[in-house]
């Protein structure tokens, strides 16, 4: 972990993941871009609107028996609503995403580089797409816009960041997404739908009147 100070307010900023290149200062909401140990400012975030997400930065869980830590989030909007993508770092040094959409949760990690990613124009909803040895069905193509972020991220999670996202599913609950972004190129993530219970999450938010997480 790298501990640095916010160039704007001087507050402490932790980079837990080596792959994090971006963070939102928890004190002054400045967007901070990291080049090794040099930090530069990239404007400010507006205050995030609270939502009913049970996850929070600092929540802990286990996926495939590897502990992970929630260290950042990006909130994205598409034409029919919002979803959360929580940036997680595993204890073994790898990273991934805990996606939270329409009440469902999924864990995604970067697909091996050997996997061929199809071009966005070649993907049609309902069609089969092969990713490595697995055959998925494309269920959704949408344009998503970042409307806010917090904590640390592996890319510049500034408001207005736009990408095209494709959801792919398998009947057994396996899930994959492909993201096409003008700056960061295309990236593919593989994973599966999973319940918070199975992730053995701790440090979840508690809401009055909703019982224990």
């Amino acid at each position, binding site marked *: *972990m790298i501990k640095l100070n916010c160039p704007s307010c001087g507050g402490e900023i*932790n980079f*837990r993941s080596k792959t994090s290149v971006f963070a939102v200062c*928890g004190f002054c909401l400045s967007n901070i871009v990291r080049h090794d140990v040099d930090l530069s400012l990239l404007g400010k975030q507006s205050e995030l*609107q*609270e*939502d*009913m*997400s*049970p996850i*929070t*930065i*600092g*929540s*802990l869980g286990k996926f495939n028996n590897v*502990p992970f*830590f929630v*260290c950042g989030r990006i909130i994205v*909007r598409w034409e*029919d*609503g*919002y979803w*959360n993508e929580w940036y997680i770092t595993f*204890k073994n040094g790898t990273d991934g995403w805990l996606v939270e959409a*329409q*009440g*469902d*949760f999924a864990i995604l990690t970067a697909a091996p580089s050997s996997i061929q990613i199809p071009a966005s124009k070649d993907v049609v*909803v*309902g069609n089969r797409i092969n990713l490595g040895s697995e055959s998925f*069905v494309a269920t959704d193509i949408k344009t998503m816009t970042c409307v806010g972020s*917090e*904590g640390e991220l592996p890319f510049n999670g500034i408001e207005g960041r736009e990408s095209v996202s494709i959801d792919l*599913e*398998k*009947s*057994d*609950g*396996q*899930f994959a997404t492909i993201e096409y972004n003008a700056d960061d190129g295309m990236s593919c993530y593989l994973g599966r*739908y999973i*319940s*918070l*219970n199975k992730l053995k999450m*701790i*440090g*979840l*938010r*508690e*809401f*009055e*009147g*909703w*019982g224990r*997480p």
Partner: protein
Amino acid sequence: MGKAMNRSRPKRSKRAKSKIKPIAKSFNCTSCGAVLSITAVGKTLSVACKSCHAIIDVNDPNYKILEKSHKASASHAPYIPIGAKGVFSGKVFECIGYMERGDGPYEWREYLLFSPYIGYRWLFEMDGHWTLLKKLHGQPDSLGNNTATYKSNEFKLFNKGTAKVLYVEGEFYWRVKSGDKSYVKDFIKPPYILSTEVIKNEVNWTFGKYIDAQTINKVFKIDKDLLYQHGVGANQPSDLAEKFNKQVKIALFALAYIFVIFLVRSKTAANEVIYEGAFQHRKTSYGSSSNFKRNEDNVTGIRKTVLTDSFYIPKKAGNLKISTKSSVYNSWIYIDALLVNKETGKGIPLATEVSYYRGSDWSEGGTSKAKHVYNVPAGNYYLNIRSRMPFHRRGYKDYTIVLRRDTLITSNLWVVGLLIIIVPFLSLFRKKSFEVRRWSNSDYSPYNYEED
């Protein structure tokens, strides 16, 4: 969890330690001004105002009205009130949305449940039958013509049609509109149901399980009379199949048991002859009949009755079987024997009728007949015998009487066997009639049920 991780937890995680008041979002209905409150903040897209029935876009900065007001009457009262909380499998869910949908004459009600930790669930109610559903990721393993296979279980197509939204209240994670149509298909494997819904190009699958009406009241602490349950629910489970299988098992076991007993009895039954005699029925020209003991020297006296020699019936003799035999042909002989106790004079009637008729291609009766008596006290006995034949018959007729004790009674076996299989048969009938009633609401009944 690694210690290093815990130690360096960012400061913002503090908020996890204290309970957060529900971050309900409230605003005024842009149509009527009533206060609208959102529970699933960040997820809910639209809310239907309870007062004016307008549907509002929650994420629009100006709370745009998606639908001014859809026709609604006071009769639309959700059985589970919006805002009611209930616990399912250990997690608190809140009923946040209510929707009435229909397809022609069929109408049903759907309740959207929300938990921040689990997500969404649906409660489906039709004809007073409830099902708790959740979204499936992906689709079933395979789809046949009238079947769907999910996790190696075959589901049978029950219904398909077009579902139309008739009424909405509360909040939804999509932009709901009255009149919205979707193509639906239901597959059943009671108590489970697998449903698919197609809206434009979006295909959604849900998986549900039948839930007791009483459970709904308990979970949501509803103090109302249960809804009237009409007929059999599509995925209503029945213990009749299980009962039937159990009864078949019991019946087979019982049959085997009595068969063994029968085998044992057939080996151990004494089947001892305690009396045996041959007689002759004689009809005189005077029209009165008389009996003779055959081979009896003294046949001079014409007697209406014959008294036999005495014989002894021991203690615990078991059953007593009287077998009469006579070679009647297209005739009958009625042998009225009375088993008389020599000491007490008490008589036990043992009347039998031997009759045998025969035509070119039929026959009825036989030339022998047997009868059982039970619990005959030990003692010395004799038989008092009278016989009768049809009036127009003249001449002689021989007959024999044999008394045996502790015989094997096969008729009992049949009676008991029949009683044993009656129960599973009745249960088979009940099972089938339940399934016929279930499928009477389906166009795909395997029972070819047709209403006139």
